[in-house]
């Protein structure tokens, strides 16, 4: 079964699908090892990991595709990818969808922000007109090679024009081919419930976004399932945890000139090799060795 089909099945299953955010191939591998059925690659994390820059529209389509391909190759579970604004207009959206699909993604997020974009929970966002994004969603839906590829219509209109406009937009995006809907950054439990009550009747899976210290109240996957969401992403948890861990480690190393006090908090050589899959390679090498 393709990962796109698998992703559609996971969405249709009764349990909410929990997708942690990953920022490179290795973090994706760890999420898979931890037992998650899917991951999401976000532009915010890739900008930080690949360029060391904030999510202000620096990362190019080529760079995102490169990172996405590495992630898709590293895991067997479906990878959801962040197509940002599609890096331009409807024509750019078409190219983005083709490139991402070739890289092996199961689903693509496409948002209605102005390019260059900002992270969904930052201030000063701007959105393009509903009509313009409708055309982008249409272009994305028509660019699919495999009809199972999931196009996620995301709207950032809540912060700019209010929830009513965001809901109207989501409905329009569903009409022209969005397979899944994502209203970014609702600001209360009531708003989240309203998203579900208004959009659920459209019959498209709904995505929730849990950004720690973001604008949306932090809920558990179970809470979100009860409200009626079909999937939830925790996009930045991994990169924030990584950032904290490394800052702590570097501070100690700088101060003490040794990492001895932190040795217990680190993975061992053997464990790391296990995790990264060295034993499988060693075994494979054995099979291909020429014996005289």
């Amino acid at each position, binding site marked *: 079964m393709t990962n796109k089909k698998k992703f559609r099945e996971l969405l249709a299953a009764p349990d909410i699908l929990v997708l942690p955010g990953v920022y490179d191939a290795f973090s994706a591998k760890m999420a898979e090892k931890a037992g998650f059925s899917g991951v999401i690659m976000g532009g915010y994390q890739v900008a930080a990991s690949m360029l060391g820059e904030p999510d*202000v*529209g*620096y990362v*190019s*389509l*080529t*760079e995102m595709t490169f990172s996405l391909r590495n992630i898709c190759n590293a895991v067997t579970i479906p990878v959801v990818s962040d197509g940002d604004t599609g*890096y*331009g*207009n409807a*024509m*750019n959206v078409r*190219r983005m969808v083709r490139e991402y699909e070739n890289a092996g993604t199961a689903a693509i997020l496409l948002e209605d922000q102005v*390019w*260059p974009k900002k992270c969904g929970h930052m201030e000063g966002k701007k959105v393009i007109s509903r009509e313009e994004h409708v055309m982008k969603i249409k272009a994305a839906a028509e660019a699919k090679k495999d009809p199972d590829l999931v196009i996620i219509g995301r709207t950032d209109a809540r912060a700019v024009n209010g929830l009513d406009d965001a809901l109207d937009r989501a409905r329009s995006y569903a009409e022209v081919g969005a397979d899944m809907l994502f209203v970014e950054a609702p600001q209360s439990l009531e708003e989240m419930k309203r998203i579900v009550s208004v959009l659920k009747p459209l019959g498209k899976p709904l995505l929730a976004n849990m950004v720690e210290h973001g604008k949306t109240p932090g809920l558990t996957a179970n809470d979100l399932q009860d409200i009626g969401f079909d999937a939830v992403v925790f996009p930045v948890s991994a990169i924030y945890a990584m950032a904290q861990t490394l800052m702590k480690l570097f501070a100690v190393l700088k101060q003490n000139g040794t990492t001895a006090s932190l040795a217990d908090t680190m993975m061992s050589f053997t464990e790391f090799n296990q995790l990264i899959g060295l034993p499988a390679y060693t075994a494979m090498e054995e099979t291909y060795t020429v014996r005289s």
Partner: protein
Amino acid sequence: MSQAKKLRKMLAEPGIIRAPGAYDAWSARLIEKAGFPAVYMTGYGLSASLIGRPDIGLLSLTEMAGEGKNIAAAVDIPVIADADNGYGGLLNVVRTVQEYERAGLAAIQLEDQVMPKRCGHMEGKQIIPKEEMAAKIRAACYARKDPDTVLIARTDARAVIDFDEALARAALYAEAGADVLFVEAPQSVEELQTIANTIHKPLLANMVEHGKTPMLTGKELEAIGFKIVIYPVTTLYTVTQAMMDMLKKVKQDDTSKHDTKHMVAFPDFNEMIGLDAIRELERSFMK
């Protein structure tokens, strides 16, 4: 001497700089071999060569800078590089300038079109407000690590608003720090002359066959007061025609043997691409 410094020197010396368009490393090498002092890296040509698509802003910064690096590495003359609209806002311009400098490109050309852009001689162009473009030029100046890197500001306002607006913009971009000004697609010799009379910085003229600007010789443009002339699509159109003709013939004749006179011979190609020199180098390592 760095290629940027070389270009600065050429700009300071008398005479117009003629720069045909390269769409890949090989076309750049042929331009150098033919004796031109500089290469113009064209987004229009790269879009055709890299992805086989029209010049409507589909190429990413990474693709442009990547190919720019190949082109700059293949030649020993300055490369004047098309950076479109800088691939986004002010911050993208900063990154574009830095990536292009790292790629070894001597001059960076930024234009005032909206994102995604389109070829300067196509219909339906749109431009950003002139203050926004002036800010982009300032961002580009700030981003430049090598003060010799030449910044070329292009305005597409002639087609979108009018000639006066284009002149006003060129003056504003010059003030914002652009080293060379490029008013895209003037429609007559008078307009070319007015540009030269009005803007007192080095000027670039764009000769696009069947474009909106009258086709003048390098000498004529120099006499008017231009400092650089680019022929961005000349190589691409020539190669396209030659290839189409050849392919048609091969399809028709079911062999390529009748047409070898239109082709470079195997040993000649090897010589041109530098096989002998590289073999000689290899031999020099083996005692």
